[in-house]
């Protein structure tokens, strides 16, 4: 098929945009790698896990407390937000009267638009004291998880809602004609049909939770320690970078880039997993 001139120009433009977008990701990775290189050169990778503590000025680079803090806060937030978000989508799609569903959806969209610093502010002034009453100090892994949950909930709710909306109406009629109850339809047909979209939404939300810096920094307490309970103060990888970047130099600075690189790798892994999960068992 031969393309017209306008088509050729458009194709060239689109190729250019796509290449630029792809190149940016690679460049970011390259940059992180380059900036981490000084420390990676003379410090074995294993020391980021085996050192006794995180005292980069003294040459101690243990990252595991921060890694665990990031891991636990993301895991907790996703575990709370996923069922809530899916339930919210099911409510607005299948159970709410249409006018209420519309309002509700706008409200969730609004929730997605609240800046993270506002969530952090609310968490710090309202949530942290409440949790502090339960178990001091209040600024803790649990507070971080709850604030993150609120932040990623709209992402999951909206993507799940869109995935459910994309389920063909013919399935609904087909299911109704077989005498299926609404729940029978949802659990048997629409959720399996919408699963790739819902899973992708959850992965997207997890990516957001991992990368979230400001809100967690404000409510999690930022003590570098391996958390032993939900009430322990923790410092996530992102908070660590934000807190120390301003004054870090030399190997310390490079070590922070290493933690950035680590974050990037985790997110890449997550995206890969989302891709795999959405491909497996897809009945198309």
């Amino acid at each position: 098929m031969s393309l017209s001139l306008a088509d050729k120009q458009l194709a060239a433009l689109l190729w250019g945009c796509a290449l630029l977008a792809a190149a940016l990701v690679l460049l970011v990775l390259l940059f992180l790698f380059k900036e981490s290189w000084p420390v990676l050169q003379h410090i074995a990778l294993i020391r980021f896990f085996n050192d006794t503590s995180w005292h980069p000025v003294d040459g101690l680079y243990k990252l595991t407390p921060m890694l665990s803090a990031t891991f636990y806060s993301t895991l907790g937030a996703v575990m709370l937000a996923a069922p809530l978000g899916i339930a919210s989508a099911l409510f607005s799609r299948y159970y709410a009267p249409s006018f209420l569903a519309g309002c509700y959806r706008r409200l969730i969209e609004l929730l997605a638009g609240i800046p993270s610093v506002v969530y952090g502010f609310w968490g710090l002034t309202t949530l942290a004291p409440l949790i502090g009453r339960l178990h001091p100090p209040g600024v803790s892994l649990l507070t971080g998880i709850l604030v993150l949950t609120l932040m990623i909930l709209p992402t999951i709710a909206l993507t799940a809602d869109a995935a459910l909306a994309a389920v063909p109406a013919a399935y609904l009629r087909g299911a109704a004609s077989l005498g299926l109850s609404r729940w029978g339809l949802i659990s048997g047909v629409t959720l399996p049909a919408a699963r790739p979209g819902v899973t992708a939404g959850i992965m997207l939300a997890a990516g957001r939770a991992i990368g979230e810096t400001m809100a967690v920094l404000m409510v999690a307490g930022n003590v570098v320690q391996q958390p032993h309970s939900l009430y322990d103060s923790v410092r996530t990888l992102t908070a660590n970078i934000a807190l120390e970047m301003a004054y870090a130099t030399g190997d310390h600075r490079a070590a922070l880039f290493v933690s950035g690189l680590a974050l990037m790798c985790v997110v890449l892994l997550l995206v890969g997993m989302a891709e795999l999960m959405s491909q497996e068992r897809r009945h198309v």
Partner: protein
Amino acid sequence: MKLNGPVKPMNETYTLGPLQIGPPCCDPEPLIRVDNLSLYYGVKPALENVSLDIYKGCITALIGPSGCGKTSFLSVLNRMTDMIPDCRVSGKVHFNGRDLRDLALDVQGLRRDIGMIFQKPVPFPLSIRRNIELPLREHGISKQAELNDVIQQVLQDVGLWVEVKDRLESSALALSGGQQQRLCIARALALKPKVLLMDEPCSALDPISSGVVEDLIQRLRGKYTVVIVTHNLAQARRIANYAGFFWIRDQQRAGCLIEFGQCKQIFEAPAHELTAAYVNGSRG
């Protein structure tokens, strides 16, 4: 009225199971009585003053041009009209001694008794087995042995067993259009309905598949009561015992029933001139 004899397979790709042929319907006994039915979408009438009897064990064909309310009429019979906002139905529809319009009626139970097949086959995006299992489980059948028996039985009934018995776990969406439609019929038969409503079940299929499905509908006669909407007059003539001719009344654009009677009479000695013009192909 002719009895349907043994059906010859059209080619090697499908086989017909031993569907039990019930008593013929020479002795008409009304199963559904429709009395003065009107249907409105909002204030716009779609169907006005339809009265007819659906006879037990017979095939009743509804013919007429597009937009004259045939599909709306079908949807009243299994209360699919409930799913259309602003849809209002008046008149009486008696089935099993109850008025179908009764709000207290168990609609799920009704739809189990009165199944529906759509123009475009709607297999769920699940495995072939799961497609049939899902409604059965919903209606309280959960023993695997019993499920397997029913699945094999209905797939044999629709002549699909030999074609799919080795790939019950693969996706129903991978089947051809004709196979999908037969799967949908099998799925409806699994619920042991009394009535099957078919909305142009062959019109989305290629001629060969269409012939296979038509043969299958023929063999449902006696055991099931079939109401079929079709635009294929030759098909209606071949398979139906009774026929109803719908037309659009000019002044209000509302559908109405012009004539109802034995299929032979409608096609060979129509009482109304519109019917004569339509079945002879000079109008519509």
